[in-house]
């Protein structure tokens, strides 16, 4: 394979990330610093894990709105268990129990979503929108609107500690991404998922239990939201009902910028991880340049539109060939 060909085989998102990173390093003051890079890496983690979970549902031609809202619910519930002011006083048992409860919460809502999508054949984006409202409402009712603070020191050192420049939480996030990558490429479930996403009728006829496959995906997506909740709680040292309120656009942005087709059946999880990195980087660069919040909202909306259009142009080209 010639160099030109091997360069071409690299997905576009890697070029975007690389070029944007280098331009930011050179032109954005305060970006080319050890601390800035480290905080950028930490900030990516939550989005990365959430996007990996939602990526699965998008592969199936669906979507999972709930995961961003679950960030709020899991952090407030888990935070109140882990907190030093809680019944267990922030002991090791409290941390363990808190994490388990957060993961269960995530998986639980995943089960509700998956069940509704599979049994009632409800369109996933409406189901998950409804459960998102439910989750948000529950989070606010649980706390009465206030935030949860007072995490024990051990939990804090996990959330903010790092090996050299790599934060612990990034290692967790990358582990999740690797697991999902393996799930998609090496296991039966992964291959069934691509099949179901491309053509549900054909896969059903060829003997794939589409219902089981779809159900599992939503549960995994919920579980990822639970893991993201643990990371967010450890990193922010507090739980709040506001977490994740504007995150869904970022999640969808990461996935679509990564070249995953919203129609299902096509897309690599590595590209979604890169997409998450790109979206976080754009956000933090715009922040450093003190661009107002509304402009960032606007720009992120435009990015989704442009990326989705480009993806379709590419699809049409490859179909023409």
């Amino acid at each position, binding site marked *: 394979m010639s160099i030109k060909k091997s360069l071409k085989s690299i997905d576009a998102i890697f070029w975007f990330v690389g070029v944007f990173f280098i331009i930011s390093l050179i032109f954005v003051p305060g970006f080319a610093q050890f601390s800035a890079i480290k905080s950028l890496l930490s900030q990516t983690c939550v989005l990365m894990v959430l996007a990996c979970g939602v990526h699965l549902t998008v592969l199936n031609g669906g979507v999972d709105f709930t995961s961003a809202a679950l960030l709020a619910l899991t952090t407030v519930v888990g935070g109140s268990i882990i907190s030093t002011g809680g019944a267990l006083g922030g002991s090791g048992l409290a941390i363990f129990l808190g994490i388990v409860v957060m993961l269960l919460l995530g998986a639980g809502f995943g089960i509700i979503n998956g069940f509704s999508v599979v049994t009632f054949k409800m*369109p996933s984006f409406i189901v998950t929108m409804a459960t998102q*409202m439910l989750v948000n409402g529950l989070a606010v009712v649980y706390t009465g609107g206030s935030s949860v603070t007072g995490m024990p020191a051990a939990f804090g050192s996990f959330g903010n500690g790092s090996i050299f420049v790599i934060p612990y939480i990034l290692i967790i996030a990358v582990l999740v991404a690797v697991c999902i990558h393996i799930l998609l490429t090496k296991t039966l479930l992964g291959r069934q998922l691509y099949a179901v996403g491309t053509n549900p009728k054909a896969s059903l006829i060829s003997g794939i239990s589409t219902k089981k496959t779809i159900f599992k995906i939503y549960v995994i997506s919920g579980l990822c939201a639970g893991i993201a909740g643990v990371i967010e709680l450890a990193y922010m040292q507090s739980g709040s009902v506001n977490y994740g309120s504007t995150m869904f656009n970022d999640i969808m942005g990461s996935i679509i910028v990564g070249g995953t087709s919203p129609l299902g059946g096509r897309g690599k999880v590595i590209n979604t991880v890169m997409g998450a990195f790109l979206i976080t980087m754009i956000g933090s660069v715009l922040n450093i340049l003190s661009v107002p919040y509304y402009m960032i*909202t606007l720009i992120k909306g435009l990015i989704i*539109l442009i990326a989705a259009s480009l993806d379709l142009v590419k699809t049409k080209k490859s179909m023409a060939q």
Partner: protein
Amino acid sequence: MEKAKKQPSTVGAGKKFVDLFCTYGLYFIFIVLIIFFAVQRPNFFSVSNFLLILKSSSVLGIAVVGMFFVLIVAGIDISVSMNMYFSAVIGATVLNSMELPLIVCFLAAGVSGLLIGCINGFFVAKVKIVPFIVTLATYSVAKGLGLFFTNQQMVFLNSSVMTLANAKVFGISVFVFIFLGIVLIAHFVLTSTQFGRQLFACGNNLVGANKMGINGPRTVFLAYAICGALAGIAGMLSACNLSVINPNFAQGDEFVVISSSVIGGASLFGGKGKVLPGAIIGIVMIQAIINGLTMMGASAYSYTIFRGIIIFIAVMVDSIKFSGEIR
């Protein structure tokens, strides 16, 4: 999420119950809730409260009518709430800075709503991106634009809007008549014009409609444009009603609008829906429940939970009905 599953052939009490629940279940729940509210709070069943519910329904009801057009062509418009915000901001700016008559402000709001609607329509119909991705993106764009024009501040409307908000004909708010007028026009367009029938055709089977010589993309585009324009008018009316535009104006209203449309008989799978009783029934039911909850003194946070449950049940019923039909 189309799956080629056959309906279970067991015809028994269970299936009958499901059928009954799908047809009358929501109305049953609604009536039980209304009786509950009426018993708990006698004021709930008064004429003045009923008129209040009608007035608050009329504002969002206009957006519901727009949503019907989009749902009929098997689309969805999530951007409707931020479209309302953006258009209301534009209308209010025109009103406050130029001292023009109110009708011009409504026109300005309608045009800015139309603009967002055209963007949605272009990307859905011409570029052929999935509707909810497009409208999610325009949601952010419209929100960003609205915050840009207001500089993230509250906007107080000129006092002239109060005359409209308090205007009454035969003791009924003029809002209700505006809403009814729009419903009647929409009903006429959907049932008695060529365009209306083309909308249903595209919603039922876009490929088939295209083969029959209907300009599918144009029809879908127009549906989104109409939805946008009506959302703009609804936004301006809502701003007149409140006489102030907060930065979180209309946030979450997209859920109310979509669930009202589905309760009112529009299907998320397209090709179905009668605006004339549907849009009115849907929005009045939702607003009556919200009004009842307010009177019960329920926490404002619990509304979100109730809205979530309502939209969930409405869509569940719609989906069960859909899988029973042969397309």
